[in-house]
């Protein structure tokens, strides 16, 4: 829309977060955004022409097709990702499903990671119902990825950081592999956000996010987004009309408001994570910590594409196993024992009884999820308070073991 602010994507990320896509109301001059809850818009010569020509994406017609609040937040996210275009959805899973459906054909094949997020894994396991097949591999093994490519492969789908072990994707190598084999590389960048990694600049064709997490950041909006070249995002948008999972205007408004503070929040999340990871690594009740800032972290290629931080998620293994981990989390006072991540408040969960509870102990161990694993999403509280809380919860466990 003409009243939207366009900010070059090479501006500072804080500037992009605040200003890109912003809408200044021409009547009131309101600077804090405007909500357009309308589901429908009066027809005009422009809308009739857009029907005739098939250009209905950027024209106010009907909110499932598009809505000003969607356009504002899409412009902001596309600029943050350094991408041409973005499309928002009612959830991250909505974004992933629509992307896979739009960019593959019946008979197509997808290569993904065996330790991809559980919701994505469940979706991929069911894709055969719509005529697509999937091969799961170790995403950090480029040779294994290449071996899994078949004649009918169309997409490589991976996460920049895996959940919950934070294994890093060899992103530039996979970008090259995708181009060499005429495949599309789609990456889920939920954990790193564009503040720390812009995957399009490192070979990804498309980037998906659960906007519910860091992008919104306040645990009060469920949303998803895909960014990339206009060509592919247009196709995904067109598919989204059939899938019917658009993000409603109020959620768009809240997501855009949340994004204004993304840069400062991510710095705080990452600073907290670095400090907490170091603290945990020294604690006698902790057997192992998974976080890229630690010397023990093995996937050092993350520094080829990740700048300024590694996000706010830390995983660690409590020495006494799952029962000890459960006791420890119940003693915590600041982090809420709840699923999800990326909000301003810290959250903690145990894979064994939540995200990976459907797997057997053996299956979990084969994925590297050992007994006692805790997933801690650091919020933006003061690190000292978080450390004190973790300390009291872990000290008791250390004393009992």
């Amino acid at each position, binding site marked *: 829309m003409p009243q939207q602010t366009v900010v070059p994507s090479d501006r500072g990320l804080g500037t992009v977060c605040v200003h890109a896509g912003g809408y200044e109301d021409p009547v009131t001059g309101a600077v804090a955004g405007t909500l357009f809850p309308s589901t429908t818009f009066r027809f005009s010569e422009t809308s009739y022409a857009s029907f005739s020509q098939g250009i209905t994406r950027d024209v106010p017609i009907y909110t499932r097709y598009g809505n000003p609040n969607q356009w504002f937040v899409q412009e902001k996210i596309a600029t943050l990702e350094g991408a041409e275009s973005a499309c928002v959805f009612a959830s991250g899973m909505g974004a992933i499903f629509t992307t896979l459906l739009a960019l593959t*054909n019946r008979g197509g094949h997808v290569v993904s990671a065996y330790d991809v997020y559980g919701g994505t894994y469940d979706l991929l396991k069911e894709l055969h119902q719509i005529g697509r097949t999937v091969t799961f591999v170790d995403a950090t093994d480029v040779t294994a990825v290449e071996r899994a490519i078949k004649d009918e492969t169309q997409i490589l789908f991976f996460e920049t950081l895996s959940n919950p072990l934070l294994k890093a994707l060899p992103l530039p190598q996979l970008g090259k592999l995708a181009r060499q084999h005429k*495949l599309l590389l789609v990456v889920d960048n939920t954990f790193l956000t564009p503040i720390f990694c812009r995957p399009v600049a490192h070979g990804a064709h498309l980037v998906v996010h659960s906007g519910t997490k860091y992008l919104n950041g306040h645990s009060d909006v469920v949303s998803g987004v895909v960014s990339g070249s206009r060509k592919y995002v247009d196709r995904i948008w067109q598919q989204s009309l059939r899938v019917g999972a658009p993000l409603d205007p109020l959620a768009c408004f809240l997501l855009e408001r949340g994004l204004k503070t993304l840069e400062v929040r991510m710095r705080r999340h990452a600073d907290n994570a670095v400090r907490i990871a170091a603290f945990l690594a020294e604690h006698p009740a902790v057997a192992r910590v998974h976080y890229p800032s630690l010397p023990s972290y093995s996937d050092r290629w993350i520094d080829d594409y990740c700048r300024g931080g590694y996000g706010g998620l830390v995983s660690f293994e409590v020495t006494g196993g799952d029962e000890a981990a459960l006791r420890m989390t119940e003693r915590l006072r600041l982090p809420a024992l709840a699923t999800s991540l990326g909000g301003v408040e810290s959250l903690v969960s145990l894979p064994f009884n939540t995200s990976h509870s459907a797997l057997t102990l053996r299956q979990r161990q084969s994925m590297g999820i050992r007994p006692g694993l805790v997933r801690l999403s650091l919020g933006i509280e003061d690190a000292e308070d978080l450390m004190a809380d973790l300390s009291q919860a872990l000290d008791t466990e250390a004393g009992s073991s």
Partner: protein
Amino acid sequence: MRNGLNIAAVSELVHEIQASPEEAPVRLRTRVAPLSAGLVQVEVATLWGGTIRVARDFRFLAVSGPNGQPSIGNHYDHLLVALGGCVLVTFVQGCSARGITIGSASVSVAATMGADREGRPFLGGVAYEYETDCDGEPAVLLDIAKYVACLSPNHRAFIERASVRVNFGSEFGDPSPDLVVSDVDGADPQLVAWTGVSLRNARVSWVYGTQLRARVNSDCEMLVDQPKQYLGLDSAPNPQEYLLAAAGVQFVYELALEAHRHNIALGEISIQTGGSLDLRGLTNVDPSAIVRVHDIAHTISTEPGLPVHKLAPLARAASGRCLVHAAICREQTIDVALTARGEPIGAFRSDLGMLADYLAELARRREAAVAAAAAASRENPQ
């Protein structure tokens, strides 16, 4: 949207291949393998379009040999559907681009096909007639029909002389040294398996967008469509894939006959047939780009593997008797007629002379458009 086609998407495709020529090449493939009882299985393989792959999930049975079976087509039928399907969808696109709304459109294709007394492939009397009910002016519709005759890749494959390669290695690998260039005039009359010609026809009807329904031999129906990446609904093979299927189905039949004559066991055989399109050619973005389906190549696989020195002579002889190869390798003329709202509105013969004249006309129009745009720019500088 007009006639089920997204006009803006067509325009964006054209702009994309202008700006990014690497998106223009398209490689299509079919695989044919004999089944029992004179049938072959045709599988449409993944298409490589520009910088992406497009999975294809289409399999159909075809009759192996010149005599059809009820409700199953043979190579003659696929060849006619390939021609009719390509010209009809190009016609619909041409009408849509010029703002014409179509009520109905179909094309009836006919040709006399078979083998002459010396066993050489015979293809003659190729003709098709459009019938449409639409709001286009007769002169405009006739112009679109001429445009189609010049820019339909399958029509051009009929009227231009080209070659067919046969190789025995990987199609995407290095060029095989055991390449056989098809020469349909080189068949050995001593190896004639059958002779005779017949008039064959097909009627292809437009359904929606790029979707078409073809009827051959009155009781055999085939669907035609485009991949969704090329503005279709992904519901059926496209006309180029039918052309490649026709070539593969006949070639595997002739190859088996040839092997039988020489008492050579082919074992398990399959033939992959590939062909290329250049989108810059068929959209007239680049007048120097190839319009016709080109670089058509068969890759033969046998199990257990037959030595090339045994397979190559068989392939050479079999290729020389393929009518589909003749359609590709010889210059044909095609008679085109057009009926709108029940009234005949024009007819022309499409051959290389007509092609040269119309392409010159297109070049003149392009120059005039460029000059007009430059003049407008001078009058209204931005």
